[in-house]
């Protein structure tokens, strides 16, 4: 499953990417690159086009025009190859609620073709790490939301993808759970896995290596949080975002 990419070569390359739904342009000529091992944040208000963009990157949507490469594969003709090399955590919890924690692991490991021995070993490790050992044979439906999200995150990583896409991963959970969730994200990034995360929480943007701010389908700013704060003379990402919003008016 490992993808051979040299460290200086970007793992996601997007050029002039467009997605139209009828006459509505959800994503309007966006271009950016994401390097291996980076935590790349995609910021924007609801309806700015973040989810549409992430779905194209995951091979769930066909782009209208523009160039798109993920892990070296083309977003038009090699979508299934992209899928083999990425993990995805949807905005809406989408694991099987009527299966147990373990059964969900078994199913997805099976789909990705992970051998049985490896699956059993990894499942045990992960459940231990997430403190979910006791819930191993419980139905997912009965778990608290924070746990479900941790579970979905670990499952997105189970097959050791090169890139993980997280679509508003910490929506609806308390700040403490969010904090521990980001600890998990850092840990994964240290292992060299690229993280692509969308959010509308500005404090989360501070945790990213670089952020792109989207508004009405366009990328209006892209840099490290530090550089953006300097550029907009703000002391937080919240301030940056507000200034960008005001400039537009």
């Amino acid at each position, binding site marked *: 499953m490992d993808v051979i990419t040299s460290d200086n070569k970007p793992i996601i390359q997007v050029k002039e990417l467009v997605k139209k739904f009828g006459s509505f342009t959800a994503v309007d000529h966006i271009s950016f690159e994401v390097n291996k091992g980076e935590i790349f944040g995609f910021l924007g208000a609801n309806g700015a086009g973040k989810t549409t963009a992430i779905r194209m990157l995951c091979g769930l949507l066909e782009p209208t025009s523009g160039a798109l490469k993920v892990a070296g594969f083309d977003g038009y003709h090699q*979508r299934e190859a992209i899928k083999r090399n990425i993990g995805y955590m949807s905005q809406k919890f989408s694991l099987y609620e009527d299966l147990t924690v373990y059964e969900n692991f078994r199913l997805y490991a099976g789909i990705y073709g992970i051998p049985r021995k490896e699956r059993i070993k990894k499942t045990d490790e992960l459940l231990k790490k997430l403190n979910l050992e006791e819930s191993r044979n419980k139905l997912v439906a009965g778990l608290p939301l924070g746990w479900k999200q941790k579970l979905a995150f670990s499952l997105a990583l189970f097959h050791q993808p090169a890139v993980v896409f997280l679509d508003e991963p910490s929506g609806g959970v308390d700040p403490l759970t969010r904090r521990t969730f980001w600890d998990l994200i850092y840990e994964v990034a240290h292992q060299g896995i690229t993280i692509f995360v969308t959010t509308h929480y500005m404090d989360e943007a501070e945790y990213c290596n670089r952020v792109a701010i989207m508004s009405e389908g366009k990328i209006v700013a892209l840099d490290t949080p530090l550089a953006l704060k300097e550029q907009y003379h703000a002391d937080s990402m919240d301030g940056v975002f507000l200034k960008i919003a005001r400039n537009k008016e």
Partner: protein
Amino acid sequence: MRTILYLLQKEFIQVFRNKAMLPIIFIMPLVQMLVLVFAATMELKKVDITVVDLDLSETSTRLTSKLEASSFFHLTRAQLSPAETDQLLLKGTADVVVTFPHGFEQDLKRNDEASVQILVDAINGSAAELSNAYLQTVIGSYNMKIRAEMMGVPKFTPPQQVSVIPSYWYNPELNFKYYMAPGVLVILVTIIGLFLSSLNLVREKEMGTIEQLNVTPIKKYHFIIGKMMPFLIIALLDLTFGLLVAKLVFGLPFRGNILTLYIFTSLYLFLVMSLGLFVSAISDTQQQVLFVSFFFMIVFIIMSGLFTPVESMPVWAQNLDKINPVYYLIRIIRNVVLKGSGLFDMTRELISLSLYGLTMFSLAVWRYRKTV
């Protein structure tokens, strides 16, 4: 291939974890077999006949007793005016009213002929025709008898007569249940095949779980087969269960090879499930799937020859039946069960069903999109 096994494991766990499933699997076939087979009968029994004998002669009384002796009629005698007779039919108290007018016997003796009035409630046309034909037969044979008596020939035998001795094959007792039971079995497997698998797929769309699957490198045909197999097995289980009920309750004779039956039923299920999954591939909600599947099922069943013979439909409708899966299976299953037809007696059906199934399966796989 291993992916399919994991998918099947998942589907089976989910199906049996669903508390509504077990009643569907075991109670539905029982109710269908016990209720439908008895209820959906075309046999005419106990036609309510009212005899208005205004003559009260020996001839009319004897004819009335003849009618009464038939198990076909449930006879009531009454003295009514013509207006009251109308009311009787209008209210539905009687299906047939036979009136012997005043002077019936006298006419017969004097003029060599007499009239009897027969009024039949013909809302159900075929039942009316049958009752009338039966009445005519009874009256006709009575006619011969009294003629013979009146002419004074002790043993009247017509000099030349073609005698017809029918021999009913495959269902010698003309037991209607033998005809209906296999058909009801078809409805049973159709409901399971058409609805359970297609609702299951579209439910994943509604729950959003399909998105997580779509972002994996899962093959489309793996996914579709995974949705099919559990319900194919459940449907075959139900077929077995239904056959047992038919055998034990109706004493349905089983003349054919059971394997032939399972081969054809599996092919049929492959076809209708593909059809159902095609519908759910193009739908977004369970409601849409239900409506479309219902539409097809009703049309298929009514045109299938389950209740009415296909041969009496207009030619264009008969041609339309060539794409009706239910029509195929009902004919096949009746042939296998009652005639004992084998696989090679129905190679044409075998080929048609296979090709049709493969086409629909390809359509379902093609139309199922891993993109949103």
